């Protein structure tokens, strides 16, 4: 897992589809963070059609960034775009719930 603050992953950019801007907050390379990143990558590939970018923020290195997005739990995925901002906490192991959190599935 790359943990640089602004590692953008842009693949198969298609201007017609909405741009997904996602930010994943972690603290060091724990099992949970690695799992979350892997889950995120998989979900993005499967459901976002490649028009997305993921930024991974390591709070161990940049603790001051936790305040900005009101992060309290780790790992936390923040959907910056499209608005409104959504947050999903946890290792993203439940794909259905992640999709609900990303507004890709209607809420139950």
């Amino acid at each position: 897992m790359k943990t640089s603050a602004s590692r953008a992953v842009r693949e198969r950019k298609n201007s017609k589809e909405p741009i997904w801007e996602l930010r994943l907050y972690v603290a060091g390379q724990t099992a949970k963070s690695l799992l979350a990143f892997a889950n995120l990558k998989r979900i993005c590939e499967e459901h976002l059609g490649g028009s997305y970018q993921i930024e991974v923020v390591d709070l161990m290195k940049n603790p001051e960034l936790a305040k900005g997005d009101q992060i309290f739990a780790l790992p936390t995925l923040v959907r910056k775009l499209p608005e409104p901002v959504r947050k999903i906490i946890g290792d993203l192991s439940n794909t259905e719930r992640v999709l609900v959190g990303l507004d890709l599935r209607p809420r139950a």
Partner: protein
Amino acid sequence: MARAKKSGLALDGILKCPTGIQGLDEVTFGGLPRGRPTLVCGGAGCGKTLLGMEFLVRGATQYDEPGVCVSFEETAEELAHNVESLGFAVHALILQKKLAVDYVQIDRSLVEETGEYDLEALFVRLGQAVDSIGAKRVVLDSIESLFASLANEAILRSELQRLFRWLKDRKLTAVVTGERGEGTLTRHGLEEYISDCVILLDHRVTETVFTRRLRVVKYRGSTHGTNEYPFLIDQDGISVLPVTSVDLKHAVSDERISTGIPALDCMLGGKGYFRGSSILISGTAGTGKTSVAAHFADAACARGERCIMFSFEESADQVIRNMRSIGINLGRWINKGLLQFHAARPTTFGLEMHLVKMHKIIRNFDPRIVVVDPVTGLIDSGTQAETQSMLLRLIDFLKEKQITALMTTLTGGASAQEQTEVSISSLVDTWLLLRDIESSGERNRGLYILKSRGAAHSNQIREFLLTDRGVQLRNAYLGETGLLTGSARVVQEAKDASQALLAEQEIGTKQCALDRKRKAIEAQMEVLRLELEAEVEESRRLIAQEQTKLKKWAQDQGKMAKSRAVNEGARAGKAKSARASEDRR
């Protein structure tokens, strides 16, 4: 308290972190456990957040211990604004890097949970805030919000446990607030994790009067005050009111101060009250309690001492006007700044508010004399037990400061005269009782001293008169029918006067008679003396005559002898006949 604090340290061996909150450090014998979390719990609006903020602000300003507040309910801006109205300059402290506020916003509708997580980000944020200002104190307000926001309670509980461990490891003195639950201290059982010190805040409304209370539920490894202590929140923050002198060891003075009524001074051994003592004047309505109090205040101001009068029945102007009618000019002392009036309806605030206001006023003005007129007025704002404990605290506070306190209390007509309504009689040192004496269609006033600790005092009932030259005391007349007062006394006094006059006249007459008799006897004596003199004179005259006669006879005899010597011959016969004639004589 300093002794208690020291002994607390010696006993417990745990370090304490002074909160700086008035009274709380006394209740906890020195403060909160240093380097450990303290749980502050209570219902909504009981002052948990404020207590936490005051802990931080006082720490930053008074003890040079910066602090961090992690708020889960209010934004930093709101929080700062709320407590700034209570006199805490939060913004300035934040700029000085003595205080940091981090608002943790958790909006459940925007948060989806999926899979395992932890609250490491919270630790990161807290750690960052603590490190940025070198904080020693932390407030988490109120961490229970997490329970409402996060579904996975198992994770939350283990994370909370880790958080409190983390706080301890970093030796942070923390205040953690929690909402009170049904039958439990906190709604989500935070007390399971924080067991070092638990403070419970409570507020109740008793007969429309609101009272806040604080209790230290537990304090591991330390003694602490176990009672419920009333506290209040005003523009200076929180004030907890412990019974100030737990061990009754205030210094006492031998100085005596005048009551302002010379006759009453006489009754109190000629010297008046003890300085720093507490004096109670009890009596039924209209017996002149306020007047006696006003005399005392007047005398104090005349000595140049500062004096505060707390009035719970009359406004300042009313008291001044009324006292002017008996010749006491209190207005001039107010103008000179020696006398302060504080009039308030007892029902305006709760008891504690009254007490704290009084404390504050007394602290600011630093008087030598405090008059509370009447303390019974305060019963209206609390129960009897509350009023008593409040008065106990007030009296202790005043004694500690060597302030002489004079309190009046109104006894109801029906209840016993020698029983005060709030049973404060055992707390006071000198107790004057004013009572009505009804007789011959009149109501008169009587005054006597029920007790005066440590001083000789008169046991007499004096009649108490309100004149235009102030209070005057008269010896009550003890006639055959008992105590006579008012016109009955006047009548009796007139009767006495006329009897005295009669007796005087009688004496006069007797004196005259005696004089006359003496004069008569003296005259008789004079006559007798003159008679005696006359007799003596006569006797002398006769004696002289006889002597002259005798002399003459002797001369005649001589002549005869001479003539006999011429005729010697006839001498013998003549001598014989002469001797014979001499014998005959």
